[in-house]
């Protein structure tokens, strides 16, 4: 599959992905001589940056990070490419100084450590040659301030037992919005839906499959949902509760994309 990306530093690289789920500082985060990762919070301690497509959400820490990246690149111990959600000047300057191709605005949910990534900063995209994109819809159905979550049964192919919105595969070149309405009707029996919002797509990985999620928000006139075979339990929940559910990947992100970030509950 191909992910859109924004060019920060020029170049192209074909590498194995190394993905940190948390922000990263090159000062103290990696051995400046060898590129070995020292930062425990990255979940990658002991791995090496050398030659990898290093992905992390955003930078943190000292401005000296730019020079550390330069030194790593000079010694051949640096990453082959940098992929970020949100770039900052410290990492960007380091990438330029080190001659490392760099992109940002990358949906890191699409990447797993070990993936082959082909970063083309100049063309503005990242290819994952071994990952197949599968478009799906996820619909959040709202009634009087609560949202319908369903727990997936054991017979579904992906994420059995996990909580999710109403979801389904987009078939052929059909309109995802139409598919979303169809899925809500089939899986809940609810009628009289009004489309309120459609969020930007986001990617959730399941092995070599990348689900490209189209999120939608509907208002329903009632809470009289009748489940079909796919789901075994339904609950109407407050938006702020959604991040707490044992859910399919990126459910809270999909929810935030149609409704803004979940409000923090008052203590």
């Amino acid at each position, binding site marked *: 599959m191909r992910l859109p990306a*924004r*060019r*920060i*530093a*020029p170049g192209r690289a074909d590498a194995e992905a190394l993905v940190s789920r948390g922000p990263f500082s090159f000062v103290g985060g990696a051995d*400046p001589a060898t590129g070995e990762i020292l930062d425990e919070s990255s979940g990658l301690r002991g791995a090496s940056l050398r030659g990898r497509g290093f992905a992390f959400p955003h930078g943190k820490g000292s*401005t*000296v990070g*730019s*020079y*550390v990246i*330069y*030194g790593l690149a*000079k010694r051949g111990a640096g990453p082959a490419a940098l992929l970020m959600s949100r*770039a*900052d*000047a*410290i990492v*960007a*300057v380091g*990438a*330029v*100084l080190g001659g490392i191709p*760099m992109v940002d605005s990358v949906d890191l949910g699409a990447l797993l450590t070990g993936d082959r990534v082909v970063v083309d900063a100049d063309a503005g995209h990242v290819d994952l040659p071994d990952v197949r994109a599968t478009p799906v819809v996820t619909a959040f159905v709202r009634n009087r301030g609560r949202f319908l979550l369903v727990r997936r049964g054991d017979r579904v192919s992906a994420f059995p037992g996990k909580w999710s919105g109403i979801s389904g595969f987009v078939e052929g070149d059909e309109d995802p919005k139409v598919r979303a309405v169809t899925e809500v009707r089939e899986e809940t029996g609810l009628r009289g839906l009004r489309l309120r919002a459609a969020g930007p797509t986001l990617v959730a990985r399941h092995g070599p499959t990348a689900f490209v999620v189209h999120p939608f928000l509907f208002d329903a006139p009632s809470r009289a949902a009748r489940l079909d075979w796919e789901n075994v339990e339904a609950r109407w929940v407050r938006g702020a509760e959604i991040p707490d559910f044992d859910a399919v990947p990126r459910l809270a992100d999909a929810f935030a994309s149609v409704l803004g970030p979940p409000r923090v509950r008052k203590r």
Partner: protein
Amino acid sequence: MRLTAAQERMRADGTPAQRKAIEILTAIGELAGAEDLVKIGSAHVSGASYKMIGDAGLEFLEDFARDARVAVPTSVNPLGTDLAQWRDLGVPAAFAEKQARIARAYEAMGASPTYSCTPYHVGIRPAKGEHVAWSESNAVCFANSVLGARTNREGGPSALAAALVGATPNYGLHLDGGRRATVVIDVRGRVAGFRISLLGLAAGTIAGDGVPYFRGLRADEADLKWLGAALASSGSCGMFHVERLTPEWRAAGTRGLEVVRVSNGDLDAVQAKYTDGSEADLIALGSPQLSGEELEEIARLVGRSPPRIPVWVFASRAVRDAHPAAVAAIEGSGGRVLADTCLEVTLLEHRFGTVATPSGKGAYYLPSLCHQKVILEDIESILERYA
């Protein structure tokens, strides 16, 4: 981002350093949403203290200096020690040697060896409306707010890149829209002298990365220096306005802004918040480096009441050389006037644990950058206490 034909040529056919410089400016401009680069009259580069940039920074600067040459007048921020007096300060020889290599790298690039955080005290005073690329937050605040010049809070490498290209990304404080006030600070009661630094610390916390507008404040240029230095430490401000005083206050646009009152009681709380030490082993004056007038005043005060603990006074080499009588008076009373360096970036943690200082900027950075406890107090009280 749009580049001019000359900039495109530099990107394609320039020296390796020029090509990297253009790429840095392009990357930062794209991140910030700049449409183009704006030509600059001068650059001021931070990142010269070995204590701050370490071996990684030294290695980069020496490599870069092989073919990097500045295209506009460029001054350099303070180093990690005084190049002439380091032995007397107990600075390890290896530190001083690496520090001297950093200085040589900047000089090889054509930068002027000011080693000052107060370029405005050594004759570098851009005109109102002139675009410059300055790093060092107090100098940025002074240039924008007091002189009416235009600069963002550049990072060290971006200011260096701008120095090579002679231009910098055109966004933020380079544009009229970025210079408007974001919050009004209503100063209640008379705030003067040392308490101006406390006001700066308070206002930085309130303004964050915005542009505070002070109402009810009377100040001279020296006061504005200390105000901006503190403000740019506790906040990431690059500019402020003072009603009826600073050059652009009329264009600040305060209608509808939040108004935050700051009283002398609030400033007492700020002073207490930044004071965690009880017994100082060093008195530090400067940060930013002192002007000639300030150095003369310190000489008078220290001469009147010589302290029993070390006093380090920070000034630029140019100011130190121009005021030999003041230097002699301070050093005759047991103090030291250090040049080439300044309080937070200088090596002092090898000897001291608690610093007494009237500098709001110093109080903000000493705990994190120098592992010091701090006594934040006015100079007269400090000298009285340690007489």
